[in-house]
């Protein structure tokens, strides 16, 4: 087979990846044809292309996904090849087939390889058959408890029982003990039905701590397959990668080699050609399981390029033209370390939902040998909900991982994008986090460190001071509501005055999953007190509702003050600002033990407001430690209440369908010993 000549490429994509492909193509003296949706007519990829053709629509299906239109343009503009980039039609077998039929080179693998790897069930079965490890689990199970118990025993704990139609954690139950299979099965069924209208469940191995590790491969049409080492892409939110690095750090050479061998073996088995990525899940013991293969150029390809010096797009084009790889595996050297941060237009404090706006000003770090920025930014660029919110990628190389982190952090600090909210500070906080520096990365890195990562970039101290001030102000306002004439009295300042105290106060502030104890000096909180405008909405018994604004910081929100049955104040705060919305709970931190912890935890109290949906025991029945006693449903989520010790149920105070309030006493577990004591007395 002789190599064909490629003189002109149509780039079936937009934004930074279109520009990236053009850069290499132009360097290879290949002309580039751009296509664009109505919305993209002023985009950089249009300006940089040699020719550009409109797709005459704003709808993705009618523009970047419209196979016929794109093939037509390629044909009429005289292109030899089409590069699909990533996303859109990059892994669409019909598109690859349509190119073939139109006699245009598709820069990517064959339609059959795309098809096989695109079908998760098929590719998993295929890999399993060829002894490539895949994640243990079973779909299409008979939906009865017996089957699930059997499969659970095979797979072993921990495992997940989850809704086939699932998402967002609903209808998903973690089982850490085989004894829990039944209750998890029942409760997942209930949640799946109420959330998705379909109670089909599947079972899957669960990994406590897992890394996302992937292998970059290149395969030519002559049976040569090489790998370009691995990447770690564990830092993800909303199932999308945020930070990627190459190589995957801290994995033994033995495991890496086994993983590379698996990757190459699979590519050879399916006659793969072009660039591809095999994604693995790796547990703490370095067991790796194939998740899927991406048959295209990855967003994060830059980090592999930085450590190998190989231009992946150039190799893609050469392979597509039919050239043999110009190097063998042993020619490929890994040098230093590279990390990439994806800059998204998004609201980090609002569950990373996309942000929109017009970019008014941007300033990027200087690109050099170590710093690479892929983007399609320009002034007045409108960032909307139409396309992926990723607007730039900053990749930095260093001799060591530590240096790469430093370089990236510095580049991020020198990158400023105004007009739309971005995750720039958030990604910087990620790579600066101690755990990241110590390479304690896992797919749950972001969710478990969320509060620290988010607060870090808005001066946590300031935020806590504001929250504490609001709390103090709310308490004071509450106190004054019916005591107008006493508000001047020093006894009614609600300031916890203590003689000769340093007066620092402890607060327990909870946000998302984090619970922090912070000690603040009233000198700091008092500064804010005078700046807060309070509007009391209502006071009902032990509850107090108010809205507030803090002008200097253009913050506003609402606060709800509640009193526990022990008369302690606890406030829920919602805070809105130009940088996002978030909610907090705050109360004074007391040194003493909490009431319900006092008597050895034997008395149980409702953890939150909700409805009782299951009571699995009756008065007097004996229970074992860890046994599920009851289930409370709140906010469509189920909260099981488990026995913290073995014993007998006493004073059962709940029944099914009962509405209960937080802190309400629900039952007590009396241990055998205690009963003996009572009998003696």
């Amino acid at each position: 087979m002789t190599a064909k000549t490629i003189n002109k490429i149509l780039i079936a994509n937009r934004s930074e990846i279109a520009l990236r492909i053009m850069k290499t193509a132009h360097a290879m003296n290949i002309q580039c044809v751009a296509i664009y949706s109505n919305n993209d007519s002023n985009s950089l990829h249009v300006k940089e292309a040699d020719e550009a053709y409109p797709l005459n629509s704003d709808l993705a299906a009618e523009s970047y996904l419209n196979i016929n239109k794109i093939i037509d343009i390629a044909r009429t503009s005289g292109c030899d090849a089409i590069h699909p980039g990533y996303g859109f039609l990059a892994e669409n077998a019909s598109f690859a087939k349509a190119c073939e039929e139109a006699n245009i080179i598709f820069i990517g693998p064959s339609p059959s390889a795309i098809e096989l790897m695109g079908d998760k069930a098929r590719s998993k079965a295929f890999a399993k058959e060829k002894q490539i490890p895949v994640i243990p689990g079973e779909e299409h199970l008979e939906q009865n408890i017996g089957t699930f118990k059997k499969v659970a025993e095979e797979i072993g704990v921990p495992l997940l029982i989850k809704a086939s139609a699932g998402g967002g954690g609903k209808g998903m139950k973690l089982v850490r003990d085989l004894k829990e299979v039944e209750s998890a099965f029942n409760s997942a069924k209930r949640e799946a039905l109420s959330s998705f209208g379909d109670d089909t469940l599947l079972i899957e191995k669960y990994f406590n701590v897992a890394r996302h590790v992937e292998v970059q491969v290149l395969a030519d049409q002559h049976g040569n397959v090489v790998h370009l080492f691995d990447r770690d892409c564990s830092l993800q939110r909303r199932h999308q990668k945020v930070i990627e690095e190459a190589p995957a750090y801290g994995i033994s050479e033995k495991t890496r080699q086994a993983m590379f061998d698996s990757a190459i073996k699979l590519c050879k088995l399916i006659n793969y050609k072009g660039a591809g990525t095999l994604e693995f899940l790796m547990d703490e013991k370095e067991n790796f399981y194939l998740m899927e293969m991406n048959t295209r150029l990855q967003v994060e390809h830059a980090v592999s390029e930085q450590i190998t010096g190989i231009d992946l797009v150039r190799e893609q084009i050469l392979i597509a033209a039919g050239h043999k790889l110009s190097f063998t595996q042993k020619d490929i050297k890994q040098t230093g370390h590279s990390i990439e941060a994806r800059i998204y237009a998004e609201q980090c404090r609002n569950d990373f939902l996309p942000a929109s706006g017009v970019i008014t000003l941007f300033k990027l770090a200087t690109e050099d040998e170590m710093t690479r920025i892929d983007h399609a930014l320009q002034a007045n660029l409108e960032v909307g909900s139409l396309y992926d919110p990723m607007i730039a990628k900053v990749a930095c190389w260093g001799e060591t991982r530590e240096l790469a982190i430093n370089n990236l952090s510095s580049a991020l600090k020198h990158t400023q994008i105004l007009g739309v909210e971005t995750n720039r500070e958030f990604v910087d906080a990620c790579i600066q986090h101690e755990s990241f520096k110590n390479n304690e990365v896992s797919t749950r890195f972001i969710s478990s460190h969320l509060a620290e990562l988010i607060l870090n970039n808005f001066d946590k101290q300031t935020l806590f001071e504001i929250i504490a001030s609001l709390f103090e102000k709310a308490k004071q306002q509450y106190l004054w509501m019916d005591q107008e004439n006493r508000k001047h009295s020093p006894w009614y300042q609600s300031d916890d005055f203590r003689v000769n105290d340093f007066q620092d106060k402890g607060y327990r502030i909870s946000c998302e999953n984090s619970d922090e104890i912070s000690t603040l000096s009233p000198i700091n909180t008092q500064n804010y007190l005078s700046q807060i405008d309070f509007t009391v909405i209502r006071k009902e018994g032990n509850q107090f509702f108010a809205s507030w604004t803090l002008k200097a910081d253009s913050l506003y929100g609402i606060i709800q003050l509640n009193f526990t049955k022990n008369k302690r104040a606890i406030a829920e705060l919602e805070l809105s600002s130009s940088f996002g919305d978030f909610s907090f709970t705050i109360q004074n931190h007391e040194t003493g033990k909490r009431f319900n912890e006092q008597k050895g935890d034997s008395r149980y109290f409702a953890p939150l407001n909700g409805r009782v949906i299951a009571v699995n025991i009756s008065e007097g029945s004996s229970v074992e430690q860890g046994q599920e006693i009851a289930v409370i449903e709140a906010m469509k989520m189920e909260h099981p209440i488990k026995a913290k010790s073995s014993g007998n149920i006493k004073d059962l105070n709940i029944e099914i369908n009962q509405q209960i309030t937080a802190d309400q006493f629900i039952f007590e577990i009396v241990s055998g010993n205690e009963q003996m004591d009572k009998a003696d007395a």
Partner: protein
Amino acid sequence: MAVIESRISTKNESFTKRREFNSALIKDLKERVKKIKEGGSPSAKEKHQKRHKLLVRDRIRHLLDEGSPFLELSQLAGFEMYEEDIPAGGIVCGIGKVSEQLCMIVANDACVKGGTYFPITVKKHLRAQTIAEENYLPCIYLVDSGGGHLPSQDEIFADRNHFGHIFFNEARMSAKGISQIAVVMGSCTAGGAYIPAMADESIIVEGTGTIFLGGPPLVKAATGEEVTADELGGARVHSEISGVCDYFANDDVEALMLARESIKNNYSEKNLNTYYPEECYKEPRYPIEELYGIIPEQLTQSFPAREVIARVVDDSELHEFKAEFGKTLICGFAKIHGYPVGILANDGILFSESAVKGAHFIQLCNKRGIPLLFLQNISGFMVGKKYENEGIAKHGAKLVNAVACARVPKITLLMGGSFGAGNYGMCGRGYDPRFLFAWPNARVSIMGGQQAANVLAQVKKDGMAIKGEQWPEPEESAFKKNITDQFDKQSHSYYASARLWDDGVIDPCDTRKVIALSLAICSRNPDEQVQKSSDEFAVFRM
């Protein structure tokens, strides 16, 4: 009213030096108090908490209303008094808001020597009761005590102001309609048993609260009967069988919530009559922190009392009485947090004119029902032939007379020296001020150490001279030094406060706050009805 114009410079070296000196003094005080607040030893506290008992200060926190101030009394009680360390004298006393009512809280610290009563513990308990009685404050006793400290029995048991007076006070206050609530959160043994027994209402905690006249060991010794503490006097026994207690609580917090309920359910006039001024007030025009730069390092250096008043009273306003007469005693009307107050402040040594001016002013305030605030910085009355001949003793007596007989609430603050008869004329402890506080720089003694040394040396020297003996200079110096050392030690504010000669050493920056809190407390009983004399007179012009 005229606004006091501050004349000090905050820029000069003396201000800076004084500020540094006093900041260090306050830091020392706060650090000592921090240590005191830690209470007993870590092992004692751990043992205490293992029994699901709250530490004493956590108990108080649960008892108080959310955000309530706690005007704690005599934190330094017992400080360096005994061989053992008795933080806060083993008992925490103070005034706080419980169910919206101001209450006196008296709480044993069981982690300090098992909460046993040392002599200073008894004194502190009695002082708290006195304050409660004078100001109609309902009392809440958080009892957790092993009773009297037996080795000190001769100092705690038999005398008038010993242990027995606690129950006497309980009975007399209850008779006057001042609520007495006891919460039994630990042992109440022997005499201690009468604290809940004498209370209007008593609450007991299951598992930890016990009340009995004789504990199991004593019972065994006396009658041979073997019995557990719980059977003898536990929560069940006293709630179900004996009726010594009225409320049964499962744990500390529940007991404290019950105490809050008891206070809430007392509607007697005496319980509710705190006066709260409705008018808005203005903060002083000068920052109170500047007091650090005003208070001198040495008591021999004087400082202008007006500068203190300007930083304590509302809007720095003082309506000065007889401003041009007897200038060494400043008298005037002012307000603190809206509470009217008549101020007497030393601004030099007391002369006859200043003394009679003070007596005149006190009569005036007494007629008008205005509480008095004494700001003491006094080395004494003037001495010498001229002054004795003009009768300074009888003029001073007028001031002492007025101070003693004034029926309005009196509050005293030692802001510097408090020596000799000056202490009496300016309402020292012997004149029953409702509250007496001191700054850490304050010194109190019969006279200055130097003067005392000189006087005693002179007497001795004269005695030796009669016998025709010589007193070598080095011996005389050593003799004098001995005296001054003793006086320095004993006049120290910590020494005084340890012995409860005052109700606490406070940070000068808290002066306005502490006095305002005290004035609110005093307003509960604005006009003490001491035996109304039949011979009332008009205000004498002195």
